[in-house]
C-alpha cells in the first residue's frame, strides 16, 4: 500500500506530485477541476524568501523571526525554521522552472510586504500565483507524459478509507459519470482552506468547500487552531465573493484613510507609526473595524499617489480588475475597502514533516495548521504551499519507500456515506452562525449563543453524513474560539483583550462518536534535531 494519492492540484498538490516524479515515484493527482482552476492562481502579491537581492542584509533567521512574531509565536518553530531556511532554494527552483519573476540588473526584485522589515517578497507583477502555477503545470506535464503523474482532474474526494484507525486510501468520485472508486495508498490532503464554511464571504474559490477537511475530521483526524481566520484588510465585495486588493498595493505606497469631518484621517500612520499601512494583517483589519465603529463611514484605500510605472509593471491586473468589477479606477480615486476572510491559519494538525494525527495521512498547503500560527504574513502562503508540498512528499518517500502499484482502480456505482451533497440552505444557515461568532472582534457571550444556535440546528432534523460533518466542523470552530480566552493574532476577544502567554499552546479539536473535544497541547520544542525522522 504505497501508492500515493494527492487530493488537490493547486500549488501544494502539484509541487508534491512533481517532487515524487523527480524521485521516480508515481502519484495520482485528484482534483475537482484542472490545476488552472485552483485557488492558487488567485494569489497576487508574491512569495517570501531571504534571497537578499535588495542589499538589506536579509537572512533566513530574520525571515524566521518575522514569521514567528507575525504568527504571535503559535507556529511550530521547527517547521518555520525548515520553511524559512529552504525559502531561497524554493524560489530559485521556481525561477528555474520559468516563472517570470520581476527582475532588475540580473536579479529578482523583492518588495515590502506587511509585518516584515525587509524587502523579501519576490513577485511577478500582480499575478504571482498564476505565474507560478503556469510554470508548475508545465513541469507536471512532463511527468504526466512519462506516466509518473496520473491526473484525475474532475474527481471529488469523498472520504478517507480507514483500516483500524489508520488511513489506507481515499474514496473519490468522478464528477462527470458519478461513479466512485476506492483508491488505496498513502494520502496527502492538499485540499485548500475552509472557504466553503463561509460561502460568498471569502476571497477564495467556490471549489474549496471545506467538505474534505470536515470528512477527515469526523473520521478521527485532529484539527487545530481553528479560531485563527485571517481577515484581509483590503477586500471589495463583488457578487458571490470578496475580491482581494493585494497587500502589494500598500507595499507600493497605498494609504488607508477614513473621513473625520472634512479631513482624511490616515489612521494607520497615526496609530502604528512603525509599520504604518504595512502592519500585520490582523492589526490593520482590527484597526479598520474600530475606526469605522468610532467615526462611521467606510475606510478607503488611496492608491492615487502611485506612479504610472508602478501600475504598468507591478500592479496591472489589479487596476484592470477594479475597473471591471467596481467601475472605479484606483489611479483616479480611492477605493472603499473592508476586511474579508482570506486565509485559514488553522486546519489539519500536522508536524514539521506534514504527518497528521492519522497514520498514512499527510496534509500540506492551506488545509494545514502549521507555519502561520495566529496570523500569516503576506507572501508566506505560497511559500508554505510550495515548500509544504515538497516537504510532505520527501517524508512520504522516506517513510513509504515501497513503490508497488496498489490495487486496481475500478469506478463503479456507489452510494453511501458522504456521497450525498449537503443541503444548500443548511450550508447558509451554518455560515450565518459562524459569521456571527467568528467576526474580527469576538466574545464568550456571543460564542456561547452561536454554539447554542448550532445545537438547536443540529437537533432540528436528520442529516446526511456530509451535513453532519459540516455541523461538527462548525461546532469545533466555535469551541476553539471560545476556549482561547486571550487575544492573539487574528483571534481578538474583547472580553480577554490581552495576550496570555500561558495560552501559547496549540488548541486541538477531535471528534469521536459525535462528541467534539477541545484540548490545549504544548507546542513542539524548538531547535529539535532532525535525527529521528522515522
Amino acid at each position: 500500500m504505497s501508492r500515493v494519492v494527492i487530493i488537490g492540484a493547486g500549488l501544494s498538490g502539484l509541487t508534491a506530485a512533481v517532487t515524487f516524479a523527480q524521485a521516480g515515484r508515481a502519484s495520482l493527482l485528484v482534483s475537482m477541476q484542472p490545476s488552472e482552476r485552483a485557488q492558487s492562481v488567485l494569489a497576487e502579491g508574491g512569495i517570501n524568501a531571504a534571497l537578499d537581492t535588495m542589499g538589506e542584509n536579509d537572512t533566513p533567521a530574520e525571515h524566521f523571526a518575522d514569521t514567528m512574531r507575525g504568527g504571535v509565536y503559535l507556529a511550530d518553530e521547527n517547521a518555520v525554521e525548515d520553511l524559512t531556511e529552504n525559502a531561497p532554494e524554493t524560489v530559485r527552483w521556481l525561477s528555474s522552472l520559468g516563472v517570470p519573476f520581476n527582475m532588475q540588473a540580473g536579479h529578482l526584485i523583492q518588495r515590502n510586504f506587511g509585518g516584515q522589515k525587509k524587502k523579501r517578497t519576490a513577485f511577478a507583477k500582480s499575478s504571482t500565483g498564476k505565474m507560478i502555477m503556469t510554470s508548475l503545470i508545465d513541469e507536471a506535464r512532463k511527468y504526466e507524459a512519462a506516466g509518473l503523474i496520473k491526473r484525475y482532474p474532475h474527481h471529488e474526494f469523498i472520504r478517507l478509507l480507514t483500516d483500524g484507525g489508520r488511513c489506507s486510501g481515499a474514496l473519490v468520485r468522478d464528477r462527470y459519470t458519478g461513479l466512485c472508486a476506492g483508491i488505496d495508498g498513502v494520502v496527502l490532503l492538499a485540499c485548500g482552506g475552509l472557504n466553503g464554511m463561509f460561502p460568498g464571504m471569502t476571497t477564495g474559490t467556490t471549489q474549496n468547500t471545506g467538505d474534505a477537511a470536515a470528512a477527515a475530521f469526523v473520521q478521527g483526524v485532529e484539527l487545530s487552531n481553528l479560531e485563527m481566520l485571517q481577515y484581509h484588510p483590503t477586500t471589495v465585495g463583488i457578487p458571490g465573493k470578496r475580491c482581494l486588493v493585494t497587500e502589494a498595493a500598500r507595499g507600493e505606497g497605498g494609504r488607508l484613510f477614513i473621513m473625520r469631518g472634512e479631513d482624511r484621517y490616515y489612521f494607520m500612520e497615526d496609530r502604528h507609526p512603525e509599520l504604518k499601512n504595512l502592519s500585520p494583517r490582523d492589526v490593520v483589519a482590527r484597526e479598520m473595524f474600530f475606526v469605522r465603529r468610532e467615526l462611521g463611514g467606510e475606510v478607503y484605500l488611496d492608491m492615487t499617489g502611485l506612479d504610472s510605472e508602478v501600475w504598468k509593471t507591478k500592479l496591472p491586473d489589479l487596476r484592470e480588475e477594479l475597473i471591471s468589477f467596481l467601475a472605479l479606477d484606483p489611479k483616479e480615486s480611492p477605493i472603499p475597502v473592508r476586511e474579508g476572510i482570506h486565509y485559514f491559519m488553522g486546519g489539519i494538525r500536522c508536524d514539521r514533516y506534514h504527518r497528521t494525527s492519522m497514520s498514512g495521512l499527510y496534509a500540506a498547503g492551506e488545509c494545514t495548521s502549521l507555519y502561520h500560527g495566529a496570523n500569516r504574513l503576506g507572501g508566506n502562503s505560497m511559500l508554505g504551499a510550495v515548500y509544504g508540498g515538497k516537504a510532505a512528499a520527501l517524508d512520504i518517500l522516506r517513510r513509504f519507500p515501497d513503490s508497488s502499484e496498489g490495487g486496481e482502480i475500478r469506478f463503479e456505482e456507489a452510494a453511501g456515506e458522504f456521497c450525498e451533497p449537503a443541503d444548500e440552505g443548511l450550508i447558509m444557515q451554518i455560515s450565518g452562525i459562524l459569521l456571527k461568532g467568528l467576526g474580527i472582534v469576538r466574545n464568550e457571550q456571543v460564542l456561547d449563543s452561536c454554539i447554542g444556535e448550532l445545537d438547536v440546528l443540529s437537533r432540528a432534523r436528520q442529516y446526511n453524513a456530509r451535513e453532519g460533518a459540516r455541523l461538527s466542523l462548525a461546532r469545533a470552530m466555535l469551541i476553539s474560539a471560545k476556549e482561547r480566552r486571550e487575544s492573539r493574532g487574528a483571534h481578538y476577544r474583547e472580553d480577554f483583550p490581552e495576550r496570555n502567554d500561558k495560552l501559547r499552546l496549540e488548541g486541538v479539536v477531535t471528534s469521536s462518536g459525535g462528541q467534539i473535544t477541545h484540548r490545549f497541547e504544548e507546542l513542539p520544542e524548538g531547535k529539535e534535531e532532525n535525527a529521528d525522522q522515522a
Partner: protein
Amino acid sequence: MQIRLDILRRKSAIDSPYIQSIDFAYEDKGESVATALTKINRSGTVSPISWECSCLQKKCGACAMVIGGVPRLACDAKLCEFEKAGFVRVEPLKKFPVIADLTVDRSAMYDALREIRLWLEKGLAPNEGSLDTAYEASRCLQCGCCLEVCPNFYVGGRFYGMAAGVPMSKLLAQLDKADRQRLAKEYSRHFYAGCGKSLACKSICPAGIETDALMVNSNAAAVFKRLFG
C-alpha cells in the same frame, strides 16, 4: 430588475437537449450569469444546472460558456448587458463534448499540450529579456473561448489553436536557440500551418491576452528564426 435566462440543458451527452427558460430577479448591476446560475441552483426551484465555476473573478477560466451567442466567462457576463432584450441565451461551448447542461469536457486542450511536449527539459537561468512575453503568455486561462470562435480549430484536427499557441509562446521566448528547435517544429506543425490569421481569438480572450503580439514573437522565433539570437 428581471431577466429571462434561456438555458440549453441536457441531462447527459446521450440525452436530447432542450431550452429551459427561467425568470430571474436581480438588484445589483454587478450580478452576472454566474451569480444567476448560483442563485437558481441554491433556490432549488429547478433540477440542479450542471456548470463549472471556481474563482468568480475572471482568473480561472472554469465558467466559459456561450452567452448571448458569444463565448465568454459567466462571471464576467453582467445581466444588465441584456436588460434591453429582456432575455439571454446560455449554452455550453460547442466545440467540446458535452458532459451535462453547461459542463463540457475540455480535455482536448490538455491533451494537445501534452502532445506537443510543452515543458522544459532542463532548468532555465532567469532571463530579463523574455519576462514580459513569458508573463503575458502565462496568463492564459485555458478556458477555450478562443477555440470556440476560431474558424480553423476543431477537436481532433492537427491545428491546436491559440489555447496551445499562447502557452507555446512562453517557452519559445524563454528557451535559447539551441533548446527551442523541437518546440519550433511543433509550433510550425500544430499552430503556424493551421492558423488562418483571422485573429478572432484576440478580441474574444477573456484575459485580454495580446495573442497577435505573442504570435508575432513565436513566428519570428520558430518559423522565420530571426529573433531571440
